[in-house]
């Protein structure tokens, strides 16, 4: 559901109260309007004219759903599937690619601190978000590593007019969940400032009361995000932004039959200093310094308070970058140069590890005539730990008429081996297996010689571990006429050098030592469709759908190794190649239907969203190591979210709702699905 407001309307939206907002909407929503985005090109562009698959979530849409964290609003979007992956952590899947392959930015700069490659998106509050821009498909040509499956850019609100404005809100929900927000925006002449503060706490939830562990333990967190802006002149502007996040969560573990308790603390700090310099009408510069630190510390004690286990994680990223845009008539040449300095110190690493990289990118946004837009660019990354990467991209948009356009893009994306894949040194204390990072494996294997029974043959660490890489193609259409909009995009990703664990040796205790290797080639393809229709100014409906196939190339090519399965009587039977279903955790069909109904007479909005996910498999259940149609699947399901917003006065909004209204639960198979959550929210705008 994408409201198409002009920038001017967005600007008004930040300033005026909601009653006025409703009136504005009544005027503009008759026709779907244009909106501008920055993530796709790093310059401002009209969304519909872009040759890439991109979508946007506006502040207004977020507000109407009544959700509070980034993961919740993203999970309501077509083609973004929030699910725990094989590591057990919940992340987003885009075009069939796991969470490790999506870059997440706040105001254009990246968030660090991943667990087994997955970012916990509930770290980010939606309380001060202006809009979220989502670019699907490989975007390494602008953003480098991690942007192999896509980029999510969270853009926060900015003061735009000389006045003090803002809002306070409080939301209470099931599981004793509290969300308290304060957002102040102030501007006077050249100075402006914005302070955002959020407190969020919950008792968590427990799908199986018989076990001592909850699905989510009790926690609280807070975010403080002060930003300062100073305009030296109309041409030179300074922006200083800081964000602090702190979370404390109960840490509980059951090891063998012993029950351990403790705390887990997370701390995050992001700091961005940016100078925007408009030299003349043709030349524009941005100088940006970014630093971020993500830390976590956790411990476990036994019942007599004796320390059992302690872990820590401390990651730093420092990144200066300079960008410039040179406008030549209607065309724009954008270039950037920068460097990354990353360090990580954590449990299971022998020493602090450092990555250094330098990069340069160039992009040409070419508009030869009214019909064509061509976007061509590349990025070159030079890295201290792995081979340099050249990531090109080409995208074309052809406007057949004012309502209808075709777009296509081909791009290269990659994800560098991460710290863990290179430097991990971990032995599971209860089971006894060992996982070694690729760069330390050889030396550690030699040190562990007396524990090793046998090394696997054909294993060597001579060649450095390669970055995972993807070639991504998209072909789509954009159609808009009056009250109707339809976007269709087909995608194909061919991924090489996927990094996976492989046993390198057997230990005397019968367990294996694993390390990381470039293994498989995989492919994903599918189709995404988004449509909306405004029946009247008070009724709007949208429908979204994604079809997805994600398969391992080597399984298709060597199917004879996987053709035998065990039936219910445990006897072996032979299956066909066409029975191969594809990757674990991928549904072929996902869809959503959203209805927004405004009852103008009583100033109330009703917002109903229904989500569908078709069956998917979590593991092989019939003995052939792959997911085939005879395996046990997680059944398809529907989730319904409903919210109602009532504008009591110009400044006061009252909202009630239910997420997962019909209380769908599958405790054994979908551990992140909590059941029905009722909420009430009050918001005061000024």
């Amino acid at each position, binding site marked *: 559901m994408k409201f198409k407001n002009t920038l001017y309307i967005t600007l008004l939206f930040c300033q005026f109260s909601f009653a006025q907002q409703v009136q504005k909407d009544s005027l503009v929503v008759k026709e779907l309007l244009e909106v501008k985005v920055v993530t796709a090109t790093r310059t401002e562009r009209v969304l519909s004219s872009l040759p890439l698959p991109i979508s946007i979530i506006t502040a207004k849409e977020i507000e109407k759903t009544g959700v509070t964290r980034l993961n919740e609003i993203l999970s309501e979007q077509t083609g973004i599937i929030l699910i725990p992956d094989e590591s057990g952590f919940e992340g987003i899947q885009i075009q069939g690619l796991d969470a490790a392959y999506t870059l997440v930015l706040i105001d254009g700069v990246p968030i660090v601190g991943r667990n087994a490659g997955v970012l916990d998106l509930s770290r980010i509050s939606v309380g001060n978000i202006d809009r979220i821009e989502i670019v699907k498909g490989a975007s390494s040509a602008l953003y480098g590593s991690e942007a192999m499956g896509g980029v999510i850019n969270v853009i926060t609100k900015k003061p735009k007019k000389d006045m003090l404005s803002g809002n306070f809100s409080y939301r209470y929900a099931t599981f004793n969940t509290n969300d308290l927000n304060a957002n102040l925006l102030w501007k006077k002449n050249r100075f402006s400032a914005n302070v955002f503060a959020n407190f969020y706490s919950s008792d968590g939830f427990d799908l199986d009361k018989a076990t001592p562990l909850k699905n989510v333990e009790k926690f609280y967190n807070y975010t403080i995000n002060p930003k300062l802006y100073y305009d030296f002149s109309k041409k030179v502007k300074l922006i200083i932004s800081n964000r602090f996040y702190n979370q404390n969560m109960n840490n509980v573990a059951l090891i063998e039959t012993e029950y351990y308790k403790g705390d887990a603390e997370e701390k995050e700090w992001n700091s961005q200093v940016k100078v925007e310099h408009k030299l003349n009408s043709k030349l524009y510069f941005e100088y940006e310094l970014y630093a971020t630190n993500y830390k976590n510390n956790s411990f476990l004690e036994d019942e007599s308070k004796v320390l059992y286990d302690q872990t820590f994680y401390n990651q730093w990223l420092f990144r200066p970058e300079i960008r410039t845009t040179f406008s030549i008539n209607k065309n724009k040449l954008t270039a950037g140069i920068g460097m990354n300095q990353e360090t990580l110190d954590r449990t299971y690493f022998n020493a602090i590890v450092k990555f250094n990289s330098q990069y340069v990118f160039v992009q040409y946004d070419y508009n030869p005539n009214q019909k064509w837009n061509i976007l061509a660019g590349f990025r070159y990354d030079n890295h201290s730990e792995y081979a340099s990467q050249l990531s090109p991209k080409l995208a074309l948009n052809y406007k057949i008429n004012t309502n209808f356009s075709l777009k296509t893009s081909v791009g290269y994306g990659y994800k560098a081996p991460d710290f863990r894949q290179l430097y991990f040194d971990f032995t599971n204390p209860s*089971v006894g297996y060992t996982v070694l990072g690729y760069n330390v494996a050889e030396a550690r294997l030699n040190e562990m010689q007396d524990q090793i029974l046998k090394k696997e043959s054909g294993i060597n660490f001579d060649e450095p571990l390669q970055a995972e890489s993807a070639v991504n193609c998209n072909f789509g259409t954009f159609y808009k006429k009056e009250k109707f909009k339809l976007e269709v995009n087909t995608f194909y990703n061919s991924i090489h050098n996927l990094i996976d664990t492989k046993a390198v040796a057997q230990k005397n205790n*019968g367990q294996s030592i694993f390390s990381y290797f470039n293994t498989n080639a995989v492919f994903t393809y599918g189709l995404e469709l988004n449509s909306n229709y405004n029946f009247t100014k008070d009724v709007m409906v949208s429908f979204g759908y994604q079809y997805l196939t994600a398969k391992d190339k080597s399984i298709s090519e060597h199917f004879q190794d996987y053709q035998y399965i065990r039936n*219910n009587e445990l*006897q*072996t039977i*032979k299956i066909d190649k066409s029975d191969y279903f594809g990757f674990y955790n991928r549904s072929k069909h996902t869809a959503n239907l959203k209805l927004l109904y405004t009852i103008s007479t009583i100033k109330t909005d009703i917002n109903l969203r229904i989500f569908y996910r078709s069956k998917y498999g979590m593991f092989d259940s019939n*003995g*052939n190591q792959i997911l085939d149609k005879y395996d046990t699947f997680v059944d398809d399901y529907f989730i319904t979210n409903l919210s109602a917003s009532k504008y009591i006065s110009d400044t006061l909004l009252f909202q009630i709702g239910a997420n997962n209204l019909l209380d769908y639960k599958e405790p054994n198979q979908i551990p992140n699905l909590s059941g029905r959550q009722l909420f009430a929210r009050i918001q005061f705008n000024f």
Partner: protein
Amino acid sequence: MRTNFLKLSLLALVIFTTSCSNDDKKEELVPAVITQKFTNLPAPATGGQGQPEGGAFTKFSFSENKIVTSDNWDVAFRGTVIIVNGGAKIGIVDEPNRTGNAAVSIVSGAFSTIKSIPLASTFKQDAAAIYAFPKSGDNAWYDYNSNTHLISSKAGKIFVIKTHDGKYAKFEILSYYKDAPAAPDLTSTGRYYTFNFAYQPNSTTTF
């Protein structure tokens, strides 16, 4: 010259085919082997959980269709480890001496479709630091699922055994859990093997 060669080849082919079919006819006289199921063979182990595994192996004889304690065992089980009575000690704790000449060849297929004995060169025996039944890789008999912590026997892995006294048997492991539940879970009791096997008492090259 060429025609002669062709004729000779044809003749050779005819002789070869007929002799083969003769063999087949002979074979048909031999009674077909019977597929039997052995349930709940206990394979306890001490240690584990990071410690070296220990304890006595449970020895099995295909000809006797039972657990034996004598030296005429063919294969033996402890936890997920399977050894053959042939070759030399691998070098693990509490390992019995090899007294026979047993070996294993691993083939793929549905159990009933495995009719012939594989080439002699494919048979492997235990040796120092070498498991004739590999513990990992494509020919390991099981998969371990790190999410469910369950051991599942790979489908279509058939183990053709040359027994300690030079006869042949084939077997397929169906389950690692007591009473062979179709869908084991964490409450299932492990280290109980259920397997199908067929023993060929005659010195022929087929089952």
